[in-house]
């Protein structure tokens, strides 16, 4: 065989190989093709094997031609294999398609009661201002709920705290135990047990003998705040509440004080925020006043300080309270306080 015929043989093999490769379909056929041409007994391999019998100068040229042909075939094969593999994957993926509109595995969704969430939000705002969260008893002594708060027995201010009493009468014929009507008794309890400085917030349940309606519930929650030290002023009270309001009701909201009476503070104020619904224009939410009353506050009454052994000439302090449900109602647009403790999931799950 001449050198020329060897080379033409190689070219012929290459062209027939390429033709067959074009016709080969899936990965299996490609493998058969590889064996036929590039396998150990493949046609091109055999040509290469036969090179040994050629003269050295011929061997170089035929070898080069054979190697070029092999590289070309290998490259083509790799390309075809890649595309065949892709089609195979595509085909199998197409089979595995799902209906993505079907619902997923249900994962039970729990949640916290809006009162819990609101108490946390309120307390967090004050904690960031250096207040500590404390709690106190709900069944209280008259002494803490009233007397130490400058509300002696038979004081007319007691009329505004419709009290639920525990059924027990002491030797003086008085009922000393009650369900606390506000979180304020913790003012006295905290101060009795600590020396100034004091800075606490007290969340908790309170109770009043009250007919329920959309804005009244006998069972409710309050957060009480108390800060006592040398040099605490009503300006600090206003600044503290203003900061609280910014965080909980938004950066635009403003606090307003108006004079009010609570026996355990002097001066006493009622604090309100400008109405977020109408920005002070007057609407249904704020009863056309432009202001929404939140709760009471004031400077701790000197009698309360004296009662716990603090010198009111040296120490001053402020106290404030707020109704948790009221805050939640304002934030979430809830119009009936009775929803809070009716425990209907259709309500609770919205928070």
């Amino acid at each position, binding site marked *: 065989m001449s050198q020329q015929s060897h080379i033409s043989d190689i070219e012929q093999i290459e062209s027939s190989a390429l033709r067959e490769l074009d016709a080969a379909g899936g990965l299996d056929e490609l493998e058969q093709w590889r064996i036929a041409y590039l396998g150990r007994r493949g046609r091109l391999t055999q040509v290469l094997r036969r090179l040994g019998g050629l003269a050295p100068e011929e061997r170089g040229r035929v070898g080069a031609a054979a190697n070029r042909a092999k590289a070309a075939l290998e490259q083509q094969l790799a390309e075809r294999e890649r595309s065949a593999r892709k089609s195979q994957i595509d085909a199998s993926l197409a089979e595995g398609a799902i209906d993505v509109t079907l*619902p997923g*595995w*249900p*994962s*039970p*969704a*729990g949640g*916290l009661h809006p009162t*819990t969430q609101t108490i*946390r939000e309120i307390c967090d705002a004050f904690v960031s*201002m*250096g207040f*500590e969260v*404390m*709690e106190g008893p709900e*069944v*209280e002594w008259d002494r803490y709920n009233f007397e130490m708060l400058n509300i002696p*027995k*038979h004081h*007319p*201010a007691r*009329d*505004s705290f419709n009290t*639920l009493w*525990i*059924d*027990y009468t002491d030797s003086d014929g008085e009922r000393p*135990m009650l*369900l606390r009507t506000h979180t304020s008794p913790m003012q006295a309890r905290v101060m009795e047990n*600590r020396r100034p*400085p004091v800075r606490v917030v007290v969340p908790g349940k309170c*109770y009043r*003998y009250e007919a329920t309606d959309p804005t009244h519930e*006998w*069972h409710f929650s309050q957060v009480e705040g108390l800060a006592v*030290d040398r*040099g*605490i*002023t*009503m*300006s*600090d009270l*206003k*600044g*503290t509440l203003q900061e609280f309001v910014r965080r909980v009701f938004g950066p635009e909201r403003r606090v307003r004080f*108006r*004079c009010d*009476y609570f026996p355990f503070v*002097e*001066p*006493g*104020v009622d604090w309100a925020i400008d109405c977020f619904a109408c920005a002070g224009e007057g609407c249904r939410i704020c009863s056309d006043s432009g202001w929404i009353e939140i709760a009471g506050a004031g*400077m701790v009454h*000197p009698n309360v300080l004296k009662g716990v052994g603090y010198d009111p*000439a040296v120490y*001053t302090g402020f106290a404030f309270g707020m109704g948790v449900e009221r805050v939640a109602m304002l934030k979430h647009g809830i119009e009936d306080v009775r929803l809070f*403790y009716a*425990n*209907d*999931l259709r309500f609770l799950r919205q928070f």
Partner: protein
Amino acid sequence: MRVPISWLKQYVPIGVSSKELAYRLTMAGIEVGEIDETGGDWDRDNVIVGHVLKVDSHPNADRLTLPTVDIGNGETATVVCGAPNVAAGQKIAFAREGARLFSPRSGKVETLKAANIRGVESAGMVCSSLELQLGEDHDGILVLDDDAPIGMPLVDYLGDAVLDIEVTPNRPDCLSVLGVAHEVAALTGGAVTEPDLSYPEEGLEIDGQVKIEIANPELCYRYTASLITGIKMGPSPQWMQDALVKAGQRPIVNVVDITNYVMLEYGQPLHAFDFDAVKDRTIIVRAARQGEEHVTLDGEKRVLSPPMLVIADSTDAVGLAGVMGGANAEMRDGTTSVLLESANFDPVNTRRTAGALRLRTDASYRFERGIRAELAPRALRRATKLILEIAGGHAAKGIIDLYPGRREPRPVKISRARLKQVLGVDFTMSRVESVLSSLGFERAKEPEGIIDLIEAVEAAPAPERDSTLWMTAPYWRSDISIEDDLVEEVARVVGYDSIPETMLATSIPPRGEPSLRTFRETLKDLLASAGMQETISYSLTSLESLGKVDATASGPEPLKIANPMSVELAYLRTTLRASILETMERNRRVSRGEGLRLFEVGRVYLAKEEARERELPDEREMAVGALSGPRFQSSWHAPRVNMDFFDAKGVLETVFAKIGGHVEYEPVRDPILHPGKAARMVCGDAVVGVVGEVHPAVLERFGLEGAPVVLFELDVEALRQAIPQDGRRYRSASRFPVSHRDLALVVDTGVPSGKVQSIIDRHKLVVGSTPFDVYQGEGIGHGKKSVAYRIAFQSDRDTLTSEQVDRAQGDIMRQLRREVGAELRDLHG
């Protein structure tokens, strides 16, 4: 307290609108709840004052007349009128054609149209009180006073506004028009003109005509009285009736109306006795006798007891002091002599008496708030003067004024330093003095002999003296006793808007011990993240509810409410079990068949048995959960399977793993749980709770038949105590691979899996094990069960060889055989 603006104007000029006035009062602590406008909707142009020139008879109807009315500007109108009382010369309210007016026939506001009534054209109307919505009277027309200017819009002549004031308990002075007038003066820069109190004293000396004695001076601080003879009972004049009606009082008869009028004017309750009914012309203010009977003005017989205070004559009570007069000395039509009382009684005793007799009156309401004794003689003279003017008669010379409770007015200090200390604002003392003066306070001399402790200790510098004022409260104010009271007076008049906002600049106090709250809130978070919804229920419950969960039989006796709102809310709960089951029931009713996972963390109230009365109850924080219904919402993925014991346990295991508690479950008997599906949870040495399926009989009590309900209950504090407090220590994960082996065991059915697992887990190479198959039945001996465990082996020193794992498995097997009699399951047998 209802305060008509027209009444206020008698004492103080008002240059601002009633809305503005209400705002200023409210901001200063005198809260105006509502403003009732009279005539606010009267048609200004078409409802005007008219003058009846003549009244002709109607040609076709006997009961109708034809008044001709001068309505100003030379205009007259002739209308048809059905009122019997219309007469020439009257000033009346005239509505022109086109006026918007209330129609008694339709009950609505309508436009008045011209009408032909029985052949006569009528272009307008003479109005009744009802049409003007001034009262109920529609039988006749409203007749105005003769001075009413013809043609004036009626709203300018008769219109008024009434401020409905919610008076706080510290301000009884504002339970009076004059008291409010003083506030108005301070807030608007006006000055108050008080009523003239002088009257001719033409009678004999009062001392010779009546004898008054206070037997219990500790309960009656002051008693003043005047005597007027020769009076004539009758209706009071229209202006007084109008004022009383606007203020919410019903006019009765002149003398009684006057006492009410003056009470509203000064805030001082008064009482008028028919002097002829007072036996022996003697009044004794004394404590009631035990069981003494007395019929009050309202006709009720009251049984009294000391120290209720009565006003008595020589034999019987003629009035209940500070509360209500007696029927026996009531003013009658024929009364000619009146003994007028204006006194001051002890607030607490008055309050107790009114409370005990359930007889709260305008008088007791004022006395129990502690009105000033200085009001008594003023109100007495004012009322005496009005009686003379309205009911005629002669006043005795002088008044009785017994004043055993006299207290000299005590000046109160106010300093610039205290204002700054409390408010954070630096006021000039001239400003302070002008504010306080506007409220009626008077500058006083510094009292001698009072040692000011603060100044003594801190040795005030000289300028401090110039920054201090001593002020005496006006006679009507009873709420001023300390310096901070004056600080508030300054702040509320100047306005709280002028107080700046500052942030706390004092040091942050050290924290106390970490509280139960932190742990409890974490627990809530974990329960919620495990798919549970938090609920909060009432702390009060009924014995019936507690009984349904056997809490009355097995638990401590619940604390009872003395004045419960209803039987459902009469006891403090001693368990949360009942409320969570009630909540489950309520939600099952409204749910669309989905699974419910509920929890509550809250307090139960456990009376201290030995010291029920000396100590507050133990308020123990508990967590309860209840799960019921399908595990998955009806799903195409899985069949509907109801939740059971293990759903609750799964939630608890997740929670305990997160808080770092190792909890063992031991079978337990609980009165409301399924006897075979209940466990108590033990952490360390402490029982921290129970979990189990609720007993079917209990489910029935709650109307929860059907799907099982699983309940768990945790003692939050016990759990917190049982969990290691030293925090978590990090352990690095082993670098070496894990080998798994499956071990199928056969044990007696009574052997708890937890026991088997604990034996497996204690081997030092075991890092975890899970039961993955439980089988009972064919192929396993009777009374036996097969449980298969997948065990993970791992060392943190090297890669385990299969020989090492075999050896470990052999060790475990030997121990299982010895301790629980376990055998390997022969899978080929």
